């Protein structure tokens, strides 16, 4: 849309259409109903007093109604007065792109159009793990979006296709686990099917079988929080390999120690890819006094290397890598326990935090 048309569109959207009063209201004034914005949300409308000159103040909440265009019932909200005008604040913001009617004494007096929202099209920006070979007992995917998405019915848009032919039923749990911003969905493969000997496992088998090719397909008919569909389908192809039945072992990680007096990166190489999101959140560095070293931690795309960039120069002393035990590998085995705990075997007591010492060069 060119600028001229864009401006015209904006003017059109903010135009107020007048209707003749048919009740006992007086001739309308020159003021118009206006929209009150807070950021990108239309949180209220201001109805000028001219519209309500025939309405006693204590009857405004009954005689002034805002309805969604073509709806019969009034929108629920709070009424307040400011300089004689009435501010109507619905309990949720007006929906972008919809029209609303203003009624006084049950007569339509005005129509307002809420300008459509940012029309940036949402995209899938990443699917973790990104690797194309994954263990057959893989526990979860993370799907990251460029914008907040709409919650609910996620599994309608996600399919797992085996060997290019069969769309597999019942492979994911319908939990709708979003982060608070609703830009990341955690998608669990049914743990009941992964856990050996449980009924779902016995009846349906594991979701993934070693030696098969799979495609995780995210379909574009998925709305974001503003009602805009995804730009395109996103497919992730992978091959299922051997089962991972070993807990991550921090003792096997390679640490590339930084030089004291510099801001060199600390590089930690895992001996296997780990859960991308947990790796970002469960690892930290402390100094010789046990204080946290401030800095920025990044995980590479393959989720097997962590880079820690300190905010200030490294001191020449012993440091410690602090790893929360909840850090998992791709199959849900964490530092304390395996995904499938066999209690016939002796269990080590849980530790909560695992540590690796390293000294700056």
């Amino acid at each position, binding site marked *: 849309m060119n600028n001229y048309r864009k401006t015209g569109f904006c003017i059109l959207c903010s135009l107020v259409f007048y209707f003749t009063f048919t009740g006992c209201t007086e001739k309308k004034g020159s003021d118009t109903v206006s929209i009150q914005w807070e950021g990108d949300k239309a949180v209220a409308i201001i109805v000028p007093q001219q519209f309500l000159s025939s309405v006693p103040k204590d009857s405004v909440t009954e005689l002034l109604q805002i309805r969604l265009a073509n709806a019969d019932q009034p929108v629920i909200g709070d009424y307040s007065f400011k300089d004689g005008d009435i501010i109507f604040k619905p*309990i949720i913001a007006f929906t972008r792109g919809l029209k609303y009617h203003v009624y006084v004494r049950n007569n339509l007096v005005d129509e307002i159009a809420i300008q459509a929202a940012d029309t940036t099209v949402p995209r899938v920006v990443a699917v973790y793990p990104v690797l194309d070979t994954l263990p057959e007992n893989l526990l979860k995917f993370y799907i990251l979006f460029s914008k907040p998405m709409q*919650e609910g019915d996620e599994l309608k848009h996600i399919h797992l296709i085996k060997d290019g032919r069969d769309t597999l039923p019942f492979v994911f749990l319908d939990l709708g686990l979003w982060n608070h911003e609703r830009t990341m969905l955690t998608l669990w493969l049914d743990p009941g099917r992964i856990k050996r000997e449980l009924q779902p496992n016995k*009846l*349906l088998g594991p979701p993934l079988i070693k030696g098969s090719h799979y495609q995780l397909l995210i379909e574009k008919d998925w709305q974001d929080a503003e009602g805009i569909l995804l730009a395109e389908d996103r497919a992730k192809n992978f091959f299922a390999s051997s089962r991972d039945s070993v807990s991550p072992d921090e003792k096997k990680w390679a640490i590339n120690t930084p030089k004291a007096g510099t801001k060199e990166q600390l590089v930690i190489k895992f001996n296997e890819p780990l859960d991308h999101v947990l790796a970002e959140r469960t690892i930290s560095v402390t100094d010789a006094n046990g*204080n946290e070293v401030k800095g920025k931690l990044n995980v590479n795309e393959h989720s097997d290397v962590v880079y820690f960039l300190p905010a200030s120069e490294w001191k020449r002393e012993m440091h410690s890598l602090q790893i929360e035990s909840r850090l998992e590998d791709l199959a849900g085995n964490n530092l304390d326990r395996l995904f499938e*705990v066999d209690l016939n075997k002796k269990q080590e007591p849980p530790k909560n935090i695992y540590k690796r010492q390293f000294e700056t060069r």
Partner: protein
Amino acid sequence: MKKLFYLVAMSMIFVLFIAADRSSTNPYGMKKGTPGIRSISALAFGPDGILFIGDSKSASVFAIDTKDKIAADKAATVEIKNIDVKIAAALGTEAKNIRIKDIAVNPVSKKIYCAVENMDGTSVLLKLEGETIQEVSLKDIEFSASSIANVPAEDQKDNRGRSLRESVISDLSYDNGNVMLSGISNQEFSSAFRVIPFPFTDKQQHSSLEIYHAAHGKYETNSPIRTFTIATLNGKKYLVASYTCTPLVLFPMDELQPGKHVKGRTVGEFGAGNSPIDMITVTSKDNSYLMMANSSRPVMRVNYKKIATYEGSLTEPIKESFSTAGVDFVTLPVVSVLQMDKLDDTKVLILQRKSNGDLDLSTLTDRLFS
């Protein structure tokens, strides 16, 4: 005489003032104000019209005084077609933009409360009066709150900022002075179940629950609870929980003590290709039933007497004869139920997606559970 009259009048005003002040004193330690509720993930009623709100975003449970205390013995049968369309219109939007997160019936007034989320993430609390939809204001109300944010272990204290985890409150319930809630983490495969005494205090009871998978004779911890209810079996109270990996498990309530590891007893595995959504306990005449709504299967009904007869026999691996289904259950001719709550002793309220795509609020009568 005039003076005496004046004195009497003044003392009466004083007495009235004291009485008025007393009537506003809340026995549950609540204070008036605006709770900072950021999301409404789950609802459950407590005593005297107290409503508990599970807020995943602020990692808290709020108790609010609804003042909805006029008792009704029986609830009217509820049949509201296209409830989502009606709620959306009342909110000034379209049905596709909202999501009904939970419904709860006030056991005192039998009124229906509904947590609704707008597509932009705004949560609102609504009350139904017949088909009329009203807002339940969350401003200037009597409330109290309890944080459920993860308390880092002692050796994590230097790491506090990083230790906060995001999780979703999957179910919430109240029983006999305790608010109970289950949580599902967005990241790790773990169990989070909390018991919080109400009225809220600084102390929080936090039991970690252990589940026994009798089917393969292994103990297994950390599986997240999806939904739960409380039931009395042989005079003893139990937490009845269903997991994301499908088993139905019982935990004795009196064993849920702080820091104690409690072993659950698996009584059934119902859900191949299915995930439990909601469950409630209903009592009809001499029988008490568990009603469970499911993602891919009809509503299931289990007579607690059948569960009770397993008492003491399932600490060993289930024998082959039980291994296919565990405890007997009845599949009801009711499908696609998303939410359930007890309406009164003879009725269950359900939120149901019909085959034509409509979302209706309707009533199951005791014909289905007696």
